[in-house]
Every structure is written in C-alpha cells, then in structure tokens.
C-alpha cells in the first residue's frame, strides 16, 4: 500500500474517536487504501488499527520477503506454469513486480488438463524451467510424492499467510482440503471452485401461479433434490427449446454430478478403512435420481464442456444449471448471457436426507487452482512470496474481479466483507451463496492417484447414464476398479491421506458419514 503511514494515522484518529465513520471511509479511499482493506476495517469489531494490521499482514509480509529475495536473486525472472485462460488475474500486477522489485513475470500457458501432466513431467525432467505452478487441488498429493513441489509449511509458519483465520482466512473446510496434503501445506488456493445451482427467476415469476396450483407451494429455488426434480419437470418445455436443467452428462464431468448427490445423502467415497462406500444404497439412489432427471436435460448434456454448457444456458435454453462460480459470471454478463442477465436466482446445492432422516446440505469443491512452488526453482522463496502475496486477503480480493481469469472468491473476507468490484462481479446474494455452500464442501479425490480414482468412477457413472449398465452393476465395477487403484498406489499411504482429509469437513457431514468416529 502506497500511503501506509497515512492510512495508519487515519486509523488511529478514527480509533481515538476524532473522525466520524463516513469521513474515515472517505479518507481511506482518498489515501489509496484498497477497497478490501477499507471494507474489512470498517466492518471489523476490533479497533481500526488492529484490523488494518491483521488484514494487510499477509500481503505486507509477503512483499517484504519478496523484496529481500528479489534483491538476492541472480535470476530476475519468475516463471509461472498456468492453465490457458487464467492469465487475466495475474497480468495486472506484472508491472508492479517489474518496477518495484525488478522481477519479470513470465507466464507459460498450457491447456487446463495439461497442467497436471506438465508438473508430473517436470518431476522426471527436472528442468527448473518453472518457479511456480498452478495445479488444481487434486494434483498436490502426487506432486508432493514425486518431489516436484515444496512442502510450504515451514514458510507458512514463518510468514503467516493467515490461511486459517476465521475472519479472512480461506473458508473452512476448503482451507484444509484444497491446500493440505497429510496436514502439511502443499499449495495456496487462489480459486474457490465449487458448484452451485442457478435458476431462471424470470421464468419462475412468469409461471408462479401455475406452479403453486400444481405443487401446492410457492415457486422458488429448490431446497432439496426432490424439489429440484419437480422444478426440472415443471419447466421442461422441449417443444420451445427450453429444458428443465443443463447439468452435465458428458464424460469427465458426469462424475461430479454423482459425487455431489452422494455427498448430499451424507455418504463419502470411502469408509475409515479405505473401503469404497459409494456403491451402497445411497450411491444407487443417487444414480437413479440422475437417471430420472435425464428426461429433462438439454439434448447436448452428453457432450457438454463447461464452455458449451455456459453458452447454452446463457442463450436461454434451460431453467436450471449446475455451474462453477464462473458460470454465474457468464450468465450475468450480457455478452455471454443475453437471455439470463438479470434473471438469475442462485442457491446452494439442494439438500437431501441422510440415513437417519436428517436433512443435510452438502457442497462439492471440485477443481480449484492454487499456487505451488517448484522444487527445481532457483528462487523458491521468492516464488513462495509471490504465491502468498497473490493469495493474501487484500490482493486476492483485488485480483478476483479482473476479467479473463478463473479465480473465484475463496477467503472469508471475499464473501463476507466484499469490495465494490467483487459485489459488482458476483452480486451480494451470490457471494453469500458461495460462502454458505463452501462451508459444507467435500473435495474431489485429493489423494495419491486422485485422477485415476476420478476417471474410474466417471467411466462407470457414464455407463449407467447411457443405460449400458444397471446402477448397482456400474457402481460395483467402479468400486472394484477403485480397490485395485488403492492396492497399487499403496493402501496405507492412501488411507493416511484420506483420514486426514476426512477429519476436516463440516460437522454435519462428518456425523452423517460417520467420519467423526474414525481414528
């Protein structure tokens, strides 16, 4: 921050009661305090000075470290391996790094699915070409085991990025499942990828009366999967090219639709002994539920990619869609969502009932990019400083709204004390939805061999969706494949990492799945 001293002074005079709130906010803005700082300070119950110190701490410490390391570094370039299409969140800061630290940022873009491949390849090639790599949370276990990235724990302890702060840390449990491997920090999350549900508010208003007559309750975003099904059925109008829902049935995406429903029923992928549990009654019910919805899906559901899915919804071809936060942005922008701008009602993923009949809200945290530091980097601490700086509560809030990047809100303050720009990008309601959904999330298979597990499941779910296999058969086959993967990767290794993953989930989910009793 440019005028840190003056801002500090303003905070002190506000604390001393010398300045009314409005004047204080104005003067912060005039002094060039970033909106995220001002917002947080103004809403903090603690004194303004304390709040200022804490929220800007991670950024300041990272910057100090970066300065020190940049001065020492022989190589004045930081090279980042990033997924294609994500550069927009990073380029706005390249000039600052060049002008103030003399560090050039070089971005190497690879198609999103190739990032994991390139990282594993670097474990073999050891070129040192990358300083920082941006994988999804699922890559960490294999990357750490291959020795291609640093365990960041020592650095996070020394320079405290405030990952776990309840006020502006990364939202729990994503703070754990999207950043840690076996309890150690493997990467710093910069993308709160989770799926949420979008509905068309204009269509609901249009047919409010008819819906109420038919179902005896007012029309609204679905609270349970049952209601989701009813809404899909009610609004399905294929003759006019309007479909009940646009969820994915395409290969590679379809597993997430299943995993989400499984979570909603309070079931995790494995029990405490690493035995697959997704092929029990809940799993079969989840598949049957999906099969029942098939009837109301968009005809392209079986070949959707995220991009064609977002576009179809934006063109107004369906009533509901299950999307990552970026999908909400698409629907909100007139250029990509001509039919949906201003007509979106979003909600957390629908609830379902657990074995004991309890209503359970669960979310699915899937994908989720983060920064990891290459072990073959010449300047690993500088690379770490960059990662901490970019993911700090303040810079993070500033970076997310830039166009042309995948980064979505991930820290508490991004959703609970948002800046004007965040609000403009996501709307206050949606930021709140994101927060409410994220606190209940269960991650992907963030385990050793994670990509293999997901593919084994995906293949069988897809077979069930096309009717090639019965639900039970498909899930049993998947369970068998998954068991083989566990055996090959090493049962004890996977189990340890699974237990540490399952320990840090929302309490209702732990209770429902029995994970609270695992040791």
């Amino acid at each position, binding site marked *: 921050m440019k005028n840190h001293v003056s801002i500090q002074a303003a905070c002190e005079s506000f604390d001393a009661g010398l300045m009314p709130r409005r004047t204080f906010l104005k003067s912060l803005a005039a002094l060039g305090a970033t909106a995220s700082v001002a917002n947080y300070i103004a809403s903090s119950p603690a004194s303004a000075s304390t709040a200022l110190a804490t929220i800007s701490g991670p950024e300041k410490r990272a910057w100090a470290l970066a300065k020190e390391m940049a001065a020492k570094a022989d190589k004045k370039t930081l090279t980042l391996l990033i997924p294609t299409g994500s550069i927009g969140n990073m380029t706005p800061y390249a000039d600052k790094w060049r002008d103030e630290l003399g560090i050039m940022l070089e971005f190497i873009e690879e198609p999103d*699915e190739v990032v*994991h491949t390139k990282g594993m390849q670097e474990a073999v090639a050891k070129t040192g070409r990358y300083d920082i790599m941006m994988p999804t949370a699922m890559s960490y276990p294999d990357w750490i*085991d291959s020795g*291609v990235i640093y365990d960041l724990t020592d650095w996070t302890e020394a320079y405290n990025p405030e990952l776990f702060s309840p006020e502006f840390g990364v939202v729990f449990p994503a703070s754990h499942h999207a950043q840690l491997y076996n309890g150690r920090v493997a990467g710093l999350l910069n993308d709160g990828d989770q799926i949420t549900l979008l509905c068309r508010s204009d269509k609901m208003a249009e047919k409010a009366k008819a819906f109420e007559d038919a179902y005896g309750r007012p029309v609204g975003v679905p609270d349970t999967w049952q209601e989701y099904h009813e809404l899909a059925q009610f609004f399905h109008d294929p003759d006019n090219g309007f479909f009940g829902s646009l969820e994915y049935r*395409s290969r590679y995406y379809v597993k997430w639709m299943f995993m989400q429903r499984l979570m909603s029923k309070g079931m995790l992928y494995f029990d405490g002994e690493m035995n697959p549990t997704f092929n029990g009654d809940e799993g079969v019910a989840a598949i049957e539920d999906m099969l029942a919805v098939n009837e109301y899906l968009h005809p*392209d559901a*079986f070949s959707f990619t995220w991009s064609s899915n977002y576009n179809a919804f934006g063109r107004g071809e369906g009533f509901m869609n299950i999307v990552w936060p970026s999908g909400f942005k698409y629907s909100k922008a007139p250029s990509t969502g001509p039919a949906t701008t201003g007509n979106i009602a979003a909600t957390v993923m629908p609830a379902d009932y657990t074995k004991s009949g309890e209503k359970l809200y669960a979310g699915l945290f899937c994908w989720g990019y983060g920064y990891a530091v290459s072990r073959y980097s010449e300047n690993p601490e500088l690379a770490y400083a960059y990662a901490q700086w970019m993911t700090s509560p303040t810079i993070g809030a500033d970076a997310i709204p830039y166009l042309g990047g995948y980064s979505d809100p991930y820290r508490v303050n991004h959703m609970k004390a948002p800046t004007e720009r965040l609000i403009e990008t996501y709307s206050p309601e949606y930021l709140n939805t994101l927060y409410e959904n994220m606190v209940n999330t269960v991650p992907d298979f963030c385990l050793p061999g994670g990509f*293999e597990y997901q*593919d084994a499941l995906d293949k069988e779910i897809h077979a069930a969706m096309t009717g090639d296999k019965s639900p039970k058969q498909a899930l049993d086959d998947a369970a068998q494949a998954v068991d083989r993967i566990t055996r090959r990767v090493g049962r004890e290794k996977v189990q340890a990492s699974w237990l540490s993953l399952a320990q840090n989930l929302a309490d209702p989910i732990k209770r429902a799945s029995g994970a609270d009793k695992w040791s």
Partner: protein
Amino acid sequence: MPQEIAISDLKGTRLGVPAADRTSAPSPTGAQRAARKRARFARGLAAPGMIISVFVLVVPLLVALAMSFTTWSPTRGSLLDAGFEGLFNYEELLVYDTRFVEAVARTLTLSVICLSLELAIGLGLAVIFLREFKGKSVLFSTLLTPMMVMPVVVGYTFWMLFQSNGPINQISMILFGTAPEWFRSAFFAWIVVIVTEVWHWTPLFFLIMLSGLNSLPENPIRAAVILGASPRQVFWRVVLPMLKPVIIVALVIRAMEIVKLFDEVFILTRGGPSTSTETISLYIYKLAFQDFQLAYGAAAAFLVLIGTLLMVHFLLAPVRDQLLGEPR
C-alpha cells in the same frame, strides 16, 4: 490414358551399352576392391538414417522397455532405484486389465470398419476418375483437401457439426423429421467417430488407388477386352487382382496410423459414452500422461508395438516380393 513416365522416355537414348561390356574385364583383385568400395558406399548411404533412428528411436525405446519391467512412477522416486518386477505389468495388462483388452479389440474393430469404408469409397472414386470429364483436375485436388486439415481441427469441427442444434441435425430434421443425440449412446458415438475418420482419410485411399490404377500395365486389360470380357469382368477378374498389392500397402499405411488415432476421438467423445469409443492410444495416453503410471503405460505400448509389427508383417506377406524390388 497417359501412361508413360519420364524414365521410359530415356530408355534407349542413353543406354546403348551392352550388358556384357559392363560386367567383363576387371581383374579379381580389382573386383574385390570394387566390392569393398561398393559396400563402404552402401554403408555411407544408410548411415545418416541409421544414426538418427538409433539415437532418436532405439535409445528411447530401450529406456521404455527397461521401464516396462519395473513398477516405476514418478511418485515412487527415481527410475534408477526402481526394482525389477519381471513381467508383472504384462501379466496385469493381458490377464486382469479388461479395459486394455477391450481397447485393443475396439481399436481393431474400428480399424476394420473405417479402413473398409475408406477403401471402398476411395477405390470407387478412383475408378470414376479413370473416365474423362470436365474439371477433373480441379475436382481431384479438391477431393484431397480433408487430408490437409489438422486432426485437432477435424475434431473440433465435427464436434460442432454434430451438436444437437448443429447443421447435421438441422439437415436431419428437414429430411427425416427427427435427429439423434449423437453422444448419448455408443452406437451413435461410433458413427460420429467413423464418419470423422472416414472423412479425414478417404482422400489418401483415393489418391493411392488412383495412383495404382494409373500405373497398371495396359496389356492384360486390353487382352481381356479383346477376349470379350465385359467391363465388370475386367474390373473384378483383371484389374482388382493386379491392384491387390496397392490395396494392401494402402491398408498397411493407414492401419499403422489408425492405431495411433487420438486427437479426433479425444475431442469428440473423450472415449465415451463410458469407454465405448476409447481407442488404445487414448488409453495409453491416460496411463502415461494422466495417471503417470509410466512403467505400466510403457508395457501397454510394447504390447501394441508387437501387435502392430505382427499385423503389418502378415498383411505384407502376399506382396512382399513385389515390394522388395530386385536385389543385387
């Protein structure tokens, strides 16, 4: 039909030297020296190709072969520390990995279907091209264009063409009043993959077939015509047998490539629904570049390599003598 090639024009003009003159005369020692020189020259000719093949193909192949006897993966430390596991991977693949066996069978089936269609269409078009008509040369080059398009682009383009509101379904709605969801069932997904592959590579068959037809000696055909054979009989009894070597060679060349079919299928279906269009190269790619089970992937690749070698060897058997030329 124009049949002569540049070489035949030269025959006789510069070749006045009788054969006897060339082989007679040199003394035994001179002959030995000449033979040594000749052998050295032959080695020199082969050397660049050999060197680059050894360094760029054989060495990596040996590394991959060594790898295939371990259970190494980067998550388990260095390759140098990996233990020898014998034929473990091979046993896994052949006995327990149904997905591998299925992918092999599927690739074979797909190859047979695609190659038959490509051959039939390519040969049919080539036969039509034996006739004279206006615009023949422009049409010839135009029909070759699909070959020039990159596989990645072919994948994206056909994916768009087969979307539910894409042009194929628009046409289908007009003609039949209905249109399938192409990616929802194995049957239709196969059709998409086959149509794409056939569109992309029929031109090569057409080219090779036409080239072969143009190169056939005319005398047997003339003789058959004089003996009163109908055009149909001439084609089936005379032309086709003479064309057999060309057909086999074309099949071999495309078969070797279709085993590697990857880009189009990956973009169109990702191997789906489920694994119903997963070709062997898609599966090996998954093993090597998504799961990084490098040792296992290498073993799978070796099995495919051996299979391809055997296939090519037996396919070529009937025409081997013809291909070898006259050794000296």
